[in-house]
């Protein structure tokens, strides 16, 4: 497939065939990660800027490893070390980066729409590594890759996304992608953590975890930001974990062999019972491994786009 996109802003840009093509490509790269020498010259001489204007360890490391395994030169830029911390606008930062002529910029930013803002001003590819509450397409793709790795196909499967949907870019991208690949999506959380207009989303919505989990093939827990309590959205962690924390008791209602996912980092005992996170149902570490393969696939597809044209 000839890759036609300049940027990856969200999975809504992808057709089902394109999403499957990303996952198929990732499968090839996953094999590289298990070799004794985990490096291929595919992107030798190409450069990727990892611009993380919001703290992130796992996504940034995952992209860094992905780039290096394809022999790309990766350059890290954090907000604290960039001109943004000196008051420079994102536009000027974008233009400065552009002048250095990278092949791709991986952007993490705390404001929804920041990736689109950068993409409209840069000639190189922009890959959204999470923008505000809006989108986290690479996380959704790695989640789908993990599930496809276990099931072969998502068609007819039911995936429950549990927790703080309102503030979650992971949830927004996953709802779109899981539907695109044929899964049924359920959402569950307290009303205070469900987004406005959620009834228009392609998902069944629950506020009772017992009902929501019934027959689900996978439960994807979302990370709970602890400051939600200060905002008056939750009383306390104890009550949240009692009502919406996933545990073995709930999983007994799910489909046999149902899987548990979490984008990390986990608040153990809050979103998910500690023993469940470490159990055979958990694919949380598979997600991390999938992340490298999927991000290798994305860097490859987007950075070789011009030569393919």
């Amino acid at each position, binding site marked *: 497939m000839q890759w036609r996109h300049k940027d990856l802003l969200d999975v809504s840009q992808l057709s089902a065939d394109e999403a499957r093509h990303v996952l198929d490509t990732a499968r090839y790269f996953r094999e590289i990660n298990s070799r004794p020498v985990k490096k291929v010259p595919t992107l030798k001489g190409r450069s990727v800027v990892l611009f993380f204007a919001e703290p992130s360890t796992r996504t940034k490391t995952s992209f860094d490893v992905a780039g290096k395994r394809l022999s790309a030169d990766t350059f890290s830029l954090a907000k604290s070390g960039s001109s943004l911390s000196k008051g420079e*606008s994102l*536009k000027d930062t974008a233009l400065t980066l552009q002048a250095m002529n990278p092949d791709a910029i991986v952007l993490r930013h705390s404001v929804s*729409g920041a990736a689109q*803002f950068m993409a409209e001003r840069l000639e190189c590819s922009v890959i959204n590594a999470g923008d505000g*509450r809006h989108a986290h397409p690479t996380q959704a793709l790695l989640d789908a890759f993990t599930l496809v790795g276990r099931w072969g196909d998502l068609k007819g499967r039911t995936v429950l996304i549990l927790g703080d949907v309102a503030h979650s*870019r992971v949830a927004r991208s996953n709802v779109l992608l899981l539907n695109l690949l044929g899964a049924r999506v359920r959402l569950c959380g307290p009303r205070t953590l469900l987004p406005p*207009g959620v009834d228009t989303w392609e998902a069944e919505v629950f506020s009772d975890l017992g009902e929501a989990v019934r027959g689900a093939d996978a439960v994807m827990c979302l990370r709970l930001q602890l400051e939600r309590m200060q905002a008056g959205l939750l009383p306390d962690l104890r009550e949240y974990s009692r009502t919406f924390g996933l545990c073995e008791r709930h999983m007994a209602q799910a489909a046999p062999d149902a899987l548990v996912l979490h984008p990390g980092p986990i608040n153990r005992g809050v979103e998910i019972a500690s023993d469940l996170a470490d159990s055979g149902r958990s694919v949380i570490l598979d997600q991390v491994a999938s992340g490298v393969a999927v991000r290798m696939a994305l860097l490859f597809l987007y950075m070789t786009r011009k030569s393919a044209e």
Partner: protein
Amino acid sequence: MSTVSLVVRNALWKKKKVDLLVARGRVASLIPSARKTRVEAAQELDASGLLLLPSLTDCHTHLREPGFEYKEDIASGLDAAAHGGFGNVLCMANTNPVNDNATVTERMLDRARAAWPHGPRLYPIGALSRGLKAEELAPMAELADAGCVAFSNDGLPVPRAEFFRRAMEYAWDQGKVVIDHCEEPSMARGAGMNEGAVSGRLGIPAQPDVAEAAQVARDILLADYLKIPIHLAHISCRRSVELIAWAKERGVQVTAETCPHYLTLTEERVEGYDSAAKVNPPLRTRDDVEAMLQALRSGVIDILATDHAPHAAHEKEVEFDLAPCGISGLDTALSVTWGLVEKKLLTLDDLVRAWSEAPCRVFGLPVNRFQAGDPADFLLFDPAAQWEVTPETMRSKGKNTPLLGTRLRGRVAAHFLGGKKVV
């Protein structure tokens, strides 16, 4: 008739061809063109094909001087006003320093008179509280003496009802009405758009329409209890309109304004994180737009205002959350609302009432109904003229409008204030 200084012939007023006679800066008479009156005048103008309209009054403008002259200054703002058809401009108090003392008011008025001696005329709105901090009342008597025509805390709504009540009472002692930006602050903190399906999808922090309506309800109840008038700024949603209609039926002294963008644009304009469409209150839903149009037709909404909020390009060209709210509106307001007349969503009478008669009445300014003795503040409007909204065609320093690149119909061909041509 020998004192007539200007005759405007063959203009269309209420679908009839008329001749307008001006003497000593005032309307001398308005007569059917068919009468072929012989008049000796210093100046004669053939306005065939042009509509005659009273000059407009904008009761909600941000002119940014003093303090933010790079966005707009009084001279450039009044330039945009003159070309947009506005003869009276009421400017908000959120300058730097805030217009909470007579020195600022007087400086504003001096600047306006120096730049535009024949008008557009500037009418400052004084701060309701010192520094707009909602902690101490502003010296409203001093401000009224200096020339302020109303009081408002502008975009920083007063959260404490008791303080707001006292401010309404004190302002009314000066014979001035309070203008309230209706927003329950705790429900709108950090919001960049209307709360709903679009904000949920885009992941933008949002405010529900009830944040506006809750404050509208508070203000109506206070006005009813105190028997003091209140003016509600830039109303944007059905919920507020329903409350205002109820209040008016009860006889509460409440008046309200809305802006051209709330009659024409919906929240979908924010798609793509377009900061040009970021405005406070935010653009609402199609249902709200229909409610606003209906309310304007029925008189529940009394006044049209621009909420002209110019910003520099670099301020809007940032991440959506960080962009300031506001649309630059003086240049486009009349053309946009004329478009609604062409679509038969409003009548020309609605426009005249809402852009001219009602704001003059509410804020105690002279009204031009084209009766003998009225101020000769009028404009000739070319309904067939087409123009594209571009940075070059806008006179305001603020080019921040979601209308950039669109073609509008109808434009001011000439504008007279006190019988003198300003455009």
